[in-house]
């Protein structure tokens, strides 16, 4: 592909250069020939003729406007007449040729080819595993941004040139190549490195279901080992994608609604989700207690429907307010209206409701609903859906109980799948646990994290991931999980971390016990304060540190020291 692009550039240049080059050759040929044919007069007054070499020499310096003068003898009138003609011809020829070259360099088609070539080279220069992100909208840009924060490489495709220029302006610490191209074209995906060995996966987030589907099937056919994460707006597409083994399909409305229902129904589980999936280092969202009772739900579009279904499934009663009940096929009892006027809200018995979800697809309306509702019933639990990221400041100023930002939620879900695959499994398990279990875990995390989103990392007991531990286990020495969680600078001190999940083969253990004996090949999902991951590294990598943690003694490392201590 890269070679093809480069070839295209060369051919384009050559093709466009034809006429200017022909003009130049013609100008030179005519000028030289004329100079050779016209008779001159030498110093003694005898007629002579210039040879081809000297004629070419004179023409070369004259029509490039350098002008060394008349050699070898002063020109005759006929020669001078010819020179006047050649100079005008030559200068015009050169101006035309240079103009054509510059026009070529500014030609949009040519620039497009150059940009594509540079993009393909940029992708091939990546030396670490990377993900292809198709679609750089609200969610796509968040995903790329978060990947950057996690130190993961990305390659971006988007059909909108404005978004690609946005990407180049973005303040990212890692170079992210971006190309303005249709992700639905397999050629473009190949240019983005779909078949490169370093390509770890592809994330299709365009707003067009057909394109996402095309991306998924292309990826699965051309590179079956790839992780494919796709957005699907309809259940049809979702089922279609799953049918050929797409690793994760995310329906934004569904995922978002599920999240919201979880926030209303099981706040602790919701907190666990948001704490663990947020970008590390951010302030933790506080615990809250959503009231039980009837909720008002404004907007019955795709999102509203999903929310209502999930809330009803959790046993929460809802009153729907919708502006176009016929078009959206709203159920009986729906209040007609936008929800921004007090009349509509009163009609929906806002005085008896305990909470309100402003879930229309218009941010201004959502804010207006909340403000109106608040003046009617100040005790309401207020939840708003935020559609566009640029309205961050507004929603923050409105001081809502919960703001659900779609792109944020989707991006967090995708990122947890990319950066810590074990986390997805952990959260899936956690959903099936009792409320008490979750609530206790949230308590522990709260004490552990000290108001910052905890770091998450995976410890792999492999020769690469944890050489010291792996060597000890292979030597039939026992290593307990708790040992790894003590501080190598003083083993009485426990590191601020918690083992969330241990995966041994296909077996999963939630919150494994400190006394658990580890086995080679185990994968452990840890969470802890930022920086703790580096301290834990001691026990994993350094055999002496591990020995100290187990026995409390620093074993002599070198041969000489060992000999000295043995004496």
């Amino acid at each position: 592909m890269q070679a093809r692009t480069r070839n295209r550039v060369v051919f384009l240049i050559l093709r466009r250069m034809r006429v200017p080059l022909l003009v130049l050759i013609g100008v030179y040929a005519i000028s030289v020939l004329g100079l050779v044919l016209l008779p001159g007069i030498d110093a003694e007054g005898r007629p002579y003729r210039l040879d081809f070499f000297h004629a070419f020499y004179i023409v070369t310096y004259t029509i490039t406007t350098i002008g060394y003068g008349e050699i070898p003898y002063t020109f005759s009138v006929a020669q001078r007449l010819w020179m006047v003609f050649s100079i005008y011809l030559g200068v015009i020829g050169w101006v035309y040729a240079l103009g054509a070259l510059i026009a070529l360099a500014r030609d949009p088609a040519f620039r497009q080819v150059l940009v594509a070539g540079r993009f393909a080279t940029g992708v091939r220069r990546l030396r670490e595993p990377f993900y292809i992100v198709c679609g750089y909208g609200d969610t796509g840009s968040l995903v790329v941004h978060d990947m950057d924060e996690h130190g993961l490489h990305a390659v971006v495709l988007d059909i909108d040139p404005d978004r690609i220029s946005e990407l180049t302006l973005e303040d990212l610490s890692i170079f992210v190549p971006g190309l303005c191209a249709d992700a639905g074209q397999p050629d473009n995906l190949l240019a983005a490195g779909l078949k490169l060995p370093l390509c770890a996966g592809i994330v299709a987030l365009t707003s067009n279901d057909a394109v996402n589907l095309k991306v998924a099937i292309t990826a699965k056919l051309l590179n079956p080992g790839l992780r494919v994460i796709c957005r699907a707006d309809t259940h049809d597409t979702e089922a279609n994608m799953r049918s050929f083994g797409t690793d994760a399909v995310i329906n934004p409305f569904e995922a978002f609604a599920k999240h919201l229902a979880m926030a209303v129904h099981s706040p602790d589980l919701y907190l666990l989700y948001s704490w663990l999936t947020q970008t590390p280092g951010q302030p933790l969202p506080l615990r809250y207690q959503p009231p039980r009772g009837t909720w008002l739900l404004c907007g019955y579009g795709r999102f509203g429907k999903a929310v209502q279904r999930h809330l009803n499934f959790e046993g929460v009663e809802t009153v729907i307010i919708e502006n176009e009940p016929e078009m959206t096929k709203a159920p009986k009892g729906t209040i007609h209206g936008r929800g921004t006027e007090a009349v509509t809200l009163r009609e929906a018995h806002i005085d008896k409701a305990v909470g309100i979800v402003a879930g229309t697809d218009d941010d201004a309306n959502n804010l207006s609903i909340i403000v109106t509702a608040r003046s009617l019933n100040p005790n309401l639990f207020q939840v708003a859906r935020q559609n566009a990221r640029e309205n961050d400041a507004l929603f923050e100023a409105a001081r809502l109980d919960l703001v659900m930002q779609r792109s944020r939620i989707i991006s967090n879900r995708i990122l947890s799948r990319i950066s810590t695959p074990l986390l997805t499994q952990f959260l899936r398990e956690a959903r099936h646990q009792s409320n008490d279990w979750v609530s206790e875990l949230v308590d522990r995390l709260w004490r552990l994290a000290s108001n910052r989103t905890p770091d998450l990392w995976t410890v792999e007991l492999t020769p690469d991931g944890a050489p010291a531990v792996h060597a000890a286990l292979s030597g039939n020495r026992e290593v307990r999980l708790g040992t790894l969680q003590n501080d190598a600078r003083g083993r009485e001190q426990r590191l601020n971390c918690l083992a969330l999940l241990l995966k041994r083969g296909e077996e999963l253990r939630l919150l494994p016990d400190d006394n658990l004996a580890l086995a080679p090949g185990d994968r452990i999902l840890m969470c802890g304060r930022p920086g703790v991951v580096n301290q834990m590294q001691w026990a994993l990598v350094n055999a002496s540190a591990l020995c100290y943690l187990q026995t409390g003694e620093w074993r002599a490392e070198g041969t000489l020291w060992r000999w000295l201590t043995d004496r």
Partner: protein
Amino acid sequence: MNIEKVIFSFFIVLALTLNFGFFLGDIDNPAHHNVYELYAAIVVNLIATVLKFGERTQIGAVLLATSLVADLQLIAAALFWTIATQTTGGGLTPATMAGIVALSGGALLANVISVVLLIVDIATLRR
């Protein structure tokens, strides 16, 4: 009839005929080889080369290559001529002339290949 094809073929064939005209005659006899013919052969060869630019087919690439070879050989012949007559002062001895004509003979071969390829291309196109 495609006027572009006419011009294209015209220059390729003209490059061959001029080259052949210069090559014709006793190899070491300066009287048999005209300097103007060499000049014309170089100019027409250069034009033919530029006309072959930007052809994306396989045959177009080979055509361009043969033309570049012919250019190289003819320009080498011209340089040889210039150096012999301008610097060493020996003039056109039979030995130099033989060298120049031999170089143009090489170019002739490249031009023959070029024309053969052109005919092959046209023949396959007709079918």
